[in-house]
């Protein structure tokens, strides 16, 4: 196996992280705004009030800006798997390529086709037909996220595949297992509703801006009310699904959950504190300046009061036998590649589940070849490999906490906003309106932290337990990687600048048609089930 330059691996990781984080600045707003538009248009169709059509059109315009720029940033990522992660694509392409292909052919085409009808069909379609189109755009954009997250769940909790020693890759086994992977389910709902929170904060914040300036009051009041209610329920859902994901990680990715909680030693139930803040030291494998709340961690993670959570030191110890077994698996696989003998195959099959740990040990083997490890040095290689099973604890610990602290802030802000809106006391609370306005970027930041938690916590694997990240990259030169990285940074920064410029411009301009008479019905007032084309 050709060994990859570690600098190229780091640059490939950095490039993918950067493009994913850039792309993810646009995605949450698309996921959530489409359903908010559907909600506004539903009220328009049911009540026939013009103001809700104005709302759907104005927020739809801001959605359009976000959608157009967001799509461009997403396309490059699919190519990166081939260009920068060719080993990964070879090893896991069957599993990963299938949902990505479905995403492109089904969800993305559906979303892109109907988005044109949504923008240009207001005067050409009946109001019911247009509403159906808006729902299809919302469904398409969220189905797009579904297939991406099914692919991602395969990397975190591989299900529906088996390793084939003939082809040296993971072979597709079960589509149902792939689609109904518990990690895919929980992660999709968590991500989708995080998008709802982002969209709700976006609409609420801009509406607060209008209310602070006394502009478009009726328009802003309705947008604010809908966003506050949309946001509070979505925030509860995000927190609930976050808990589900934590429980799944406890069962399937113990290194991730231990890193998230900064848990170096196995917990002492039920008294183990939940560490609110600390400075995890990866080099010395300990925390500095811990501040914790006793009795919280065990029920939070295990949903019981008596189950322990395995700490990182103990996970390292548990990995020792697996690394040793994995070395045997890799050695048997190498022999089988030459001999194709049933003895070598049987030996490989006996250690197959630990193959990834054997691959992890190649970094410490002479000439990166585990078959070349002398018998008296195996213990040293195993010992050197043990700390490699852990992700970067500082990054995982803090990205998780920042996400959680932000989500608690959203819960408080949406709850107070919804209450004051329902009581019609919004305009008295200028501080709250300012907080809503300044909180617009925070949900997007929280989703970025969530993504970092999930992906940094998965390390050192691209396919958890099977393929180490340092063996997944392509064999590019460093200069190629630096050149393409700089190119992406420049290009994507232009996209972000364009998005911000257009968003600020159109948000400041406000709605094209501001119905000052919110109770005036659309002309002609029609029932919700009237199939005539809408009046412009």
């Amino acid at each position, binding site marked *: 196996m050709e060994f990859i330059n570690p600098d190229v691996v780091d640059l490939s990781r950095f490039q993918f992280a950067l493009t994913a984080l850039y792309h993810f600045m646009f995605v949450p707003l698309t996921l959530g705004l489409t359903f908010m538009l559907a909600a506004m248009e539903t009220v328009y169709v049911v009540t026939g009030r013009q103001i809700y059509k104005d709302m759907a059109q104005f927020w739809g315009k801001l959605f359009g800006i976000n959608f157009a720029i967001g799509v461009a940033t997403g396309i490059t990522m699919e190519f990166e798997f081939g260009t920068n992660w060719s080993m990964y694509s070879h090893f896991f392409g069957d599993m990963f390529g299938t949902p990505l292909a479905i995403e492109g052919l089904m969800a993305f085409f559906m979303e892109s086709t109907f988005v044109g009808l949504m923008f240009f069909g207001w005067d050409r379609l009946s109001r019911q037909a247009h509403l159906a189109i808006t729902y299809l755009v919302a469904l398409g954009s969220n189905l797009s996220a579904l297939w991406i997250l099914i692919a991602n769940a395969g990397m975190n909790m591989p299900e529906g595949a088996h390793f084939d020693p003939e082809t040296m890759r993971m072979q597709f086994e079960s589509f149902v297992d792939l689609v109904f992977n518990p990690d895919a389910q929980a992660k999709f709902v968590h991500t989708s509703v995080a998008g709802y929170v982002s969209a709700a904060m976006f609409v609420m914040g801009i509406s607060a801006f209008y209310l602070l300036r006394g502009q478009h009051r*009726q328009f802003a009041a309705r947008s604010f009310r809908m966003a506050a209610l949309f946001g509070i329920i979505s925030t509860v859902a995000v927190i609930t699904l976050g808990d589900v994901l934590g429980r799944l990680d406890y069962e399937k990715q113990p290194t991730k959950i231990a890193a998230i909680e900064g848990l170096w030693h196995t917990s002492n139930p039920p008294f183990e504190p939940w560490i609110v803040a600390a400075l995890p030291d990866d080099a010395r494998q300990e925390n500095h300046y811990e501040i914790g709340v006793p009795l919280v961690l065990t029920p939070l993670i295990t949903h019981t009061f008596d189950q322990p959570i395995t700490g990182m030191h103990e996970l390292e110890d548990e990995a020792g036998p697996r690394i040793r077994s994995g070395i045997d698996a890799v050695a048997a696989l190498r022999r089988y590649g030459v001999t194709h003998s049933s003895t070598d195959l049987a030996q490989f099959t006996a250690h197959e589940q630990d193959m990834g740990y054997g691959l992890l040990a190649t970094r410490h083997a002479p000439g990166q070849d585990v078959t070349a490890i002398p018998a008296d040095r195996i213990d040293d290689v195993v010992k050197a490999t043990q700390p490699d099973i852990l992700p970067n604890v500082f990054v995982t610990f803090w990205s998780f906490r920042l996400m959680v602290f932000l989500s608690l802030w959203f819960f408080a802000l949406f709850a107070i906003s919804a209450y004051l809106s329902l009581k019609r006391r919004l305009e008295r609370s200028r501080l709250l309106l300012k907080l809503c306005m300044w909180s617009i970027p925070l949900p997007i930041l929280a989703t970025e932290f969530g993504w970092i938690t999930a992906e940094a916590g998965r390390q050192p694997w691209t396919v958890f337990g099977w393929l180490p990240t340092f063996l997944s990259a392509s064999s590019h030169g460093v200069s190629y990687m630096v050149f393409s990285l700089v190119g992406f940074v420049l290009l994507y920064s232009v996209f972000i600048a364009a998005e911000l410029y257009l968003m600020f411009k159109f948000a400041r301009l406000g709605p094209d048609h501001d119905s000052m008479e919110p109770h005036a019905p659309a002309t002609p007032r029609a029932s919700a089930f009237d199939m005539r084309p809408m009046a412009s």
Partner: protein
Amino acid sequence: MTKILRLAGLAVVLVVSLLFAVFVGDQGPWYFAWVIGTVMIILISGAGAIMLDAQSSLSPDGEI
């Protein structure tokens, strides 16, 4: 005839929805929760807006 066809269409949608609920509710409970939850979020936020219309009609010049 149109009404019968519409009723038949709605009946088909009902049956498909029930089958979807039974299958997905069993195999993918969180997918099912997402469908139900999203519909609920849309309905509640829409109801909030309609409630604001009702509140405004009671006191048109009132505070927001």
